[in-house]
């Protein structure tokens, strides 16, 4: 072997292969097994990052998955019983480390460490919810309604956790019905949700409404919802299809139910007043069902923590918008934010992760470390993302140098909730509730969907990744308006067609092809890693 080759081999061993399309660059696409997306072997990221990944991400998270179960479960045996009983649990949560792998592929140094802390917090929050389900589930306890059951409040996953803070000091827990059985499963193992979509259609219900609503109803149709709460609070999520889901949930759950709608057009002050009244009615409903009164102290205590998390996020956004030193990748940013704002403060995991990330971020700022050195374009992602391919931005950075700086899901709850008086708190709560996922900047009216331009400027982005949820009637209606505006404003934008959870409608390979086409035919650019252009991962999780 020539001296030059030995030197290169040693350099690759110590630092990992360079992120480059040239000979000798890392070729991440060649690591995949055909179709399954499993890895022939994991990437060698250099000595430091490979062993950081092995001990601090792979090993650390395996160990903490076990300690989280011991921490949150009243009886760990219930966890195994639940795994055996519920498909969304057994089929989904075992491959969770592979979810990390997909989101963190190719990351190095600070980007690898910081993004992984966001994932860690999400796994911890998920295990807490799973344990809350199983601790209270009458099906796992011989039909007995235990104390955990009586202290659990079921609500639709887009009813923000903030709503339930007043009852938490008295020991009540908010449990979003679909967040774990539906939302998180799609990210971790996209196979599971297909059973639930097909279940609804097998009843003769139409296949063209939003597949999210179909899947959420399908969990009930397949009798796969734990019986863990004496009451249910539903909401219309973002659209009419969800209203039908709520009707089916009312039928199948067969429990006292309060419908807490999210207004469709939320700029009207009268609508806001109506919403404030609805929230108070919801609290009254919970008081009646639980016998526990609204507690202002309990509310304020958690709101202060939530506000602190929001201020942390503003700090991070400041760095993300004005510098190249922000260490969180696109998928870790989006999922952490939507998960934490929806689930709310029910533990310290969000705050702990946020503090760790801030520490890494300020290290990058002080030492001028660019965590994404191959960035060619700063991208803002807009509208609702494909849940089965939320890690597209990791792929896009590795393949094309497209760095997804921020996304719509992160920006929805861009506010603090005042705690100086009940009236201010209620007013802000109404705004927070109305700014729900898929509503604030998606189905919430033309003024709000076009906030894109302001955020694009604020975050110093030069390109838009525009999600195109093919089964969302609301967003399909504004497709042409965006096309016109992109042309008029001379904005570089590519579309990502998808069907939210259903990977059969638009495959991951098709999404990649669309981006590849845009980057070659419109941008005339060469890939950073040509091995990632085209590969078959049709059977992957």
């Amino acid at each position, binding site marked *: 072997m020539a001296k030059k080759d030995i030197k290169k081999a040693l350099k690759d061993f110590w630092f990992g292969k360079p992120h480059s399309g040239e000979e000798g660059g890392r070729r991440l696409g060649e690591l995949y097994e055909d179709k399954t997306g499993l890895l022939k072997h*994991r990437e060698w990221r250099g000595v430091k990052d490979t062993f950081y990944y092995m001990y601090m991400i792979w090993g650390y998270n395996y160990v903490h998955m076990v300690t989280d179960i011991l921490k949150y479960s009243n009886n760990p045996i219930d966890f195994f019983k639940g795994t055996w009983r519920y498909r969304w649990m057994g089929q989904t949560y075992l*491959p969770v*480390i592979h979810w990390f*792998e997909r989101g963190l592929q190719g990351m190095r140094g600070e980007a690898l460490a910081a993004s992984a802390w966001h994932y860690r917090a999400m796994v911890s929050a998920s295990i807490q919810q799973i344990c809350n389900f199983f601790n209270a589930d009458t099906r796992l306890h011989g039909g007995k309604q235990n104390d955990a059951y009586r202290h659990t409040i079921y609500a639709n996953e887009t009813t923000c956790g903030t709503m339930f803070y007043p009852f938490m000091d008295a020991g009540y827990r908010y449990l979003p019905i679909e967040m774990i059985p539906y939302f998180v499963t799609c990210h971790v193992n996209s196979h599971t949700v297909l059973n639930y979509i097909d279940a609804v259609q097998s009843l003769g219900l139409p296949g063209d409404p939003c597949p999210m609503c179909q899947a959420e109803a399908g969990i009930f149709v397949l009798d*796969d919802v734990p019986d863990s709460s004496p009451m249910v609070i539903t909401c219309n999520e973002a659209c009419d299809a969800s209203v039908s889901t709520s009707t089916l949930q009312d*039928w*199948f759950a067969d429990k*006292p139910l309060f419908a807490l709608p999210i207004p469709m057009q939320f700029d009207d002050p009268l609508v806001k007043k109506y919403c404030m009244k609805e929230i108070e009615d919801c609290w009254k409903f919970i008081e009646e069902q639980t016998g526990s009164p609204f507690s202002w102290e309990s509310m304020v205590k958690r709101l202060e923590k939530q506000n602190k998390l929001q201020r942390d996020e503003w700090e991070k956004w400041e760095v993300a918008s004005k510098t190249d030193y922000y260490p969180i990748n696109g998928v870790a940013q989006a999922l952490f934010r939507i998960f934490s704002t929806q689930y709310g403060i029910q533990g310290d995991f969000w705050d702990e992760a946020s503090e760790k990330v801030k520490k890494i971020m300020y290290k990058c700022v002080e030492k001028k470390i660019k965590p994404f050195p191959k960035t060619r374009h700063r991208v803002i992602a807009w509208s609702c993302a494909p849940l089965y391919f939320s890690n597209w931005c990791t792929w896009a950075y590795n393949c094309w140098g497209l760095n997804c700086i921020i996304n719509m899901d992160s920006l929805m709850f861009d506010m603090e909730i005042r705690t100086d008086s009940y009236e201010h708190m209620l007013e802000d709560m109404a705004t927070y509730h109305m700014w729900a996922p898929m509503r604030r900047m998606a189905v919430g009216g033309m003024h709000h969907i076009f906030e894109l331009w302001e955020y694009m400027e604020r975050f110093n982005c030069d390109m838009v990744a525009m999600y195109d949820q093919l089964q969302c009637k609301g967003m399909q209606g504004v497709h042409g308006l965006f096309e016109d505006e992109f042309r008029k404003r001379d904005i570089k934008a590519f579309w990502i067609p998808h069907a939210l959870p259903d990977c059969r409608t638009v495959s991951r390979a098709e999404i990649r092809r669309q981006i590849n086409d845009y980057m070659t035919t419109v941008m005339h650019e060469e890939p950073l890693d040509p091995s990632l252009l085209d590969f078959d991962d049709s059977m992957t*999780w």
Partner: protein
Amino acid sequence: MCKIGKFFLKLFGVLFAVNALLFVVFFFDLDGKLLFNVVEPFLKKHYDDMERKDVIKQPYDMNKFPKY
């Protein structure tokens, strides 16, 4: 060699072997392969074969609870 020295040598050997084994599992994605090829198909079969309540046979009692 004194007893303590032997003990630490053994301990080091065991730790090294465990770490080497873990590295092989980690690097070659053996955990992923086991879950994808063995555990998931087994669990899928179990869930597919599971008897489930036919929820649509359940009556929709619209007036069962008071109005909220």
